[in-house]
C-alpha cells in the first residue's frame, strides 16, 4: 500500500497515510485553539471522517491537508461558541503567578505560561492567526485558506494579536 502513488489511493488508504503524518499535529493545533483536549481530538477525528467522504474529489495530499485544516479550524470555532467550552476555556485560563518560584528552570516555564495565558485570552480569530503562524508555521495564504478569510484580514488579525501580546513579551524580555 505504501508504494502506490497517492493519485491511486482509495479513501481508506488516504486516511491511513494522512493520519500517520498529520493526526497528532492536528490534535495539537486544535488543542492550542481550544485549550480543551478531549474535544480537540473529537474535532480532528470529525475532520478525518469528512476527508474520507471527500477524498474522491480531493485526490491530493496537499489539498487534503488544507481541507483538514479548514475543518479543524471551523470545528474549533464552533466548539468555542458552545457555552460550556467557553466556560471551561476561561476557567482554565489562570492568571500567571506574580513571581518566579525557586524551582530550577521555573523562569523559562513561567515565561511560557504567561505567554500561553495571554494567547488564550486573545479573541478567537487573533488566536487562530497566531497559532497557525507560529505553531503550524503556515504562510499567509495558507492561514487565509484555513481561516476562510482574505490575506489582508490575516495580516490584520495577526498584527492586532502581536500588539496585544507585546506588553507581556516586553515585560518578559
Amino acid at each position, binding site marked *: 500500500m505504501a508504494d502506490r502513488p497517492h493519485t491511486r489511493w482509495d479513501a*481508506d488508504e488516504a486516511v*491511513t497515510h494522512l493520519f500517520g*503524518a498529520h493526526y497528532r499535529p492536528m490534535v495539537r493545533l486544535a488543542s492550542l485553539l481550544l485549550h480543551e483536549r478531549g474535544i*480537540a481530538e473529537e474535532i480532528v*477525528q470529525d475532520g*478525518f471522517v469528512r476527508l*474520507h467522504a471527500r477524498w474522491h474529489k480531493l485526490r491530493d495530499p496537499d489539498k487534503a491537508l488544507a481541507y483538514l485544516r479548514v475543518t479543524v479550524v471551523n470545528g474549533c470555532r464552533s466548539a468555542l461558541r458552545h457555552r460550556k467550552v467557553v466556560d471551561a476555556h476561561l476557567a482554565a485560563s489562570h492568571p500567571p503567578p506574580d513571581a518566579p518560584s525557586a524551582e530550577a528552570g521555573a523562569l523559562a516555564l513561567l515565561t511560557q505560561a504567561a505567554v*500561553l495565558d495571554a494567547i488564550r485570552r486573545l479573541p478567537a480569530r487573533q488566536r487562530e492567526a497566531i497559532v497557525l503562524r507560529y*505553531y503550524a508555521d503556515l504562510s499567509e495564504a495558507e492561514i487565509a485558506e484555513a481561516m476562510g478569510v482574505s490575506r489582508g484580514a490575516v495580516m490584520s488579525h495577526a498584527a492586532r494579536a502581536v500588539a496585544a501580546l507585546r506588553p507581556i513579551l516586553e515585560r518578559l524580555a
Partner: protein
Amino acid sequence: MTPEETIRRALESEASTVDVRPDALSTIRARTRRRRTRAAVRVWLGAGMAVAAAVALIFAVDRPGPAPLPGSPTSTPTASAGASPTVAAGPLVAVYWSHDDRLVREFHRAAAADTPTDRVRAALALMFGTAPLDPDYTSAWPAGTAVRDVTVAGDVVTVDLGGATSPSALATQQLVWTVTAASTLPEVRIGAGGPVLRRAPAIDTLAPVWLINPQHDDVVRGGRVEVHVAGFAATARLDITPAVAGYPRDLTLAGGSPAQREAQLTLTVPPGRYTLTVTVAGGASDDHIVVVE
C-alpha cells in the same frame, strides 16, 4: 530571544504535552465504515422504493386495490453493521513505564473518570497497582507504593503517597508524565510540601523508539495490523517474526512533533502470532507480540 521565538517556543512547549489516543485510527475507521453502511442503506432503500413504486404501478394497472409492500430491507444493513468492531468499555488511560532507563507509554482501560482528579487516580492506580502489558517494561517505583489522595489546585496536581518519596529521577518523571497525561495540567507535586514538578524534555526522558501500536499481546482480527512507531531518529527498522515478505524494512519517521517523529503503516499478514521489533541506530529497540486472527 525575539518575541516571535518566545511565542513559538511557548506554543510548541504546550503542544508537546498533548498525547493522542492510540485507538484514534480505529475509531475513525469504524465511523467511516458506519457512514458507508448508511450510504449503502440509502441506496438500497432508494432502489427498494423504486421497485415498490414500479410494482405498485403494475398492480394499479393490472388490478385495482392496494399495492403490495416490498419486503423489509433492514436485514442487509444489520448484517453489515455487525461487522463493525466492538469498542471496549471505559476510557483509555496513558501510563508511563521504565524501559532501559527511559520512559515508554502504554494505554490501559480504566473505569469511567470524568474529572482530572478521577483520571489521575485511575492512571496512578494502574501505574502502582498493575503490571505493564509488555514484560520488558517495569515501574521505576517500588512495589507497595500507594496513593492516599489526589487533589487539584489551579494547574498543580498534588499526589499524596503517604510520605513515600521518589527513589530516582526516572521514577519522578514516570509519575509526572503519567499524571500530566491524565490531568492535562502541567504541574505535579509529590506531597503537599513537595516542589512543583514538570515534564523533563522528551529527548532526555522518553525511549529513543517505541511501538505505539500494536500494544503487547494485542489481538487483531481481519489480518490487518495497524503499526504505529514513535522515535527521535529519522528512520527506524521494522522486523517481523515469523518472516514476512518485504521485512525487515526501513521506515521514515516524520510528522508527529519536532521532538518525536512517527511512522504508520498497515501490515497484512495471515493469522498467527507475530513479534514486531522496531530498532533505531544505536541499538535501542522495542518489540511487541501481536496475535492476528
